[in-house]
């Protein structure tokens, strides 16, 4: 099944997943079986060797249906990207086929109570091959089989893989958060847990391993946001064309048209930012890193703006239970925080501007 057909086949279910607090296990399984997890990993590791363009389309189309579904693709892609890039030959052989098949679901465990935007200050420690600490907001952490954990060893950042079934791993599912309610988010405690793998030498765990994962995450989140914005625009166009008040279609009002115009520009801009970052990634361009930060920042803001307009133009229907635009609005708020909050991205982008980034 191609990914557009798959996405459309579950569109009607996304509201229920949001309400019930989870993408169902069989749907996660179906995403894996259809080959949508870590699809950019080379075929020799069971992936499909998809280009950034193909991964981007997948995330835009999933993001236009359900943020949590896109989040599943994001997190598995992040961990696979880190293993592919910075795992040794044995680690790639051990983990990538299981990540591409979905036999192993992964969580990305970096954020802590005292380390969100500044991941260099994590307090989770690796000592004698065992990890101890508490991680927050792990997407699909409630169902993950393995965690990519950022820790420090002798004061140096180190990235490790930890088997979720090891004694000493305790998973606390998070419910009732503003958005991404179906993403099986969990806080995870590691209490002297032996690690399965150390990825890259200590000292490179943050800048290189976690950095590669976050770069991949920003890329897929950016496209997810572009898809979310487009979905909100499409839903709103359909609503204002069909809805009449006092015998006049909403779309006949100048003020409504003006808002639609603004939403179209936001959506198009998000799309083009993502396309630009994608082209640089296709080319292995070093600027792809900064341009991906830029695309994620711009697309998340666009998603947030368009979703808010969409809710307002839907009126009461926008704030009703199971409202699609209402869900997108809540999810969009999360997008402006994860994989680098707006304010952190602005610091990077200001530096990029000083370098003449264009």
């Amino acid at each position, binding site marked *: 099944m191609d990914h557009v057909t798959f996405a459309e086949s579950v569109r009607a279910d996304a509201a229920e997943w949001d309400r019930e607090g989870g993408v169902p296990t069989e749907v996660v399984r179906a995403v894996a079986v259809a080959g949508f997890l870590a699809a950019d990993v080379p075929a020799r590791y069971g992936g499909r060797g998809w280009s950034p363009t193909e991964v981007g389309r997948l995330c835009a189309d999933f993001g236009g249906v359900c943020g949590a579904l896109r989040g599943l693709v994001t997190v598995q892609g992040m961990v696979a990207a880190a293993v592919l890039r*910075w*795992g*040794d030959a044995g680690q790639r052989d051990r983990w990538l086929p299981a990540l591409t098949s979905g036999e192993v679901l992964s969580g990305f465990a970096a954020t802590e109570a005292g380390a969100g935007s500044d991941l*260099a200050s994590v307090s989770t420690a690796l000592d004698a091959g065992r990890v101890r600490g508490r991680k927050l907001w792990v997407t699909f952490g409630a169902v993950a089989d393995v965690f990519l954990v950022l820790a420090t060893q002798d004061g140096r950042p180190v990235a490790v893989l930890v088997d979720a079934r090891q004694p000493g791993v305790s998973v606390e599912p998070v419910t009732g958060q503003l958005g991404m309610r179906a993403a099986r988010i969990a806080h995870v405690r590691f209490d002297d847990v032996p690690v399965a793998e150390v*990825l*890259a*030498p200590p*000292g*490179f765990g*943050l*800048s*290189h391993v976690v*950095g*590669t994962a976050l*770069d991949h995450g920003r890329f897929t989140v950016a496209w997810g946001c572009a898809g979310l914005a487009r979905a909100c625009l499409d839903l709103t166009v359909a609503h204002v064309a069909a809805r009449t008040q006092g015998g006049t279609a909403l779309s006949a009002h100048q003020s409504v048209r003006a808002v639609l115009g603004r939403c179209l520009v936001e959506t198009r801009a998000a799309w083009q930012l993502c396309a630009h970052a994608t082209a640089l990634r296709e080319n*292995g*361009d*070093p*600027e*792809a*890193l*900064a341009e991906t*930060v830029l695309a994620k920042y711009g697309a998340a803001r666009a998603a947030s703006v368009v979703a808010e307009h969409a809710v307002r133009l839907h009126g009461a229907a926008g704030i009703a239970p199971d409202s699609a635009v209402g869900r997108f609005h809540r999810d969009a708020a999360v997008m402006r925080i994860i994989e680098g909050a707006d304010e952190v991205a602005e610091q*990077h982008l200001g530096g990029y501007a*000083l*370098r*003449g980034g264009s």
Partner: protein
Amino acid sequence: MASDFGVDDDLGPIVERIRAFFASALPESPLEPDQDYFALGLVNSLLALELVTYVEKSFTIRVDVEDLDLDNFRTMNRIAAFVRGKLAAAR
């Protein structure tokens, strides 16, 4: 500071390519080929990863996990020596 390497016809052009990266990335911090930009706190984690991509793209080499030794990256001269070694190994 003592030089890691003498003037070397092979390394010169490589150093210049790397210097171009830092001139662009750190326009306010002119660097000498033997200055340790990590020790000076000039390289954040995003730039460290960008440096890897730049070196790979500029010299058509692959930086592997086995190459992740700060001694390969901490000065322009050290990167140049690392690159020369990679290029020689690929020949």
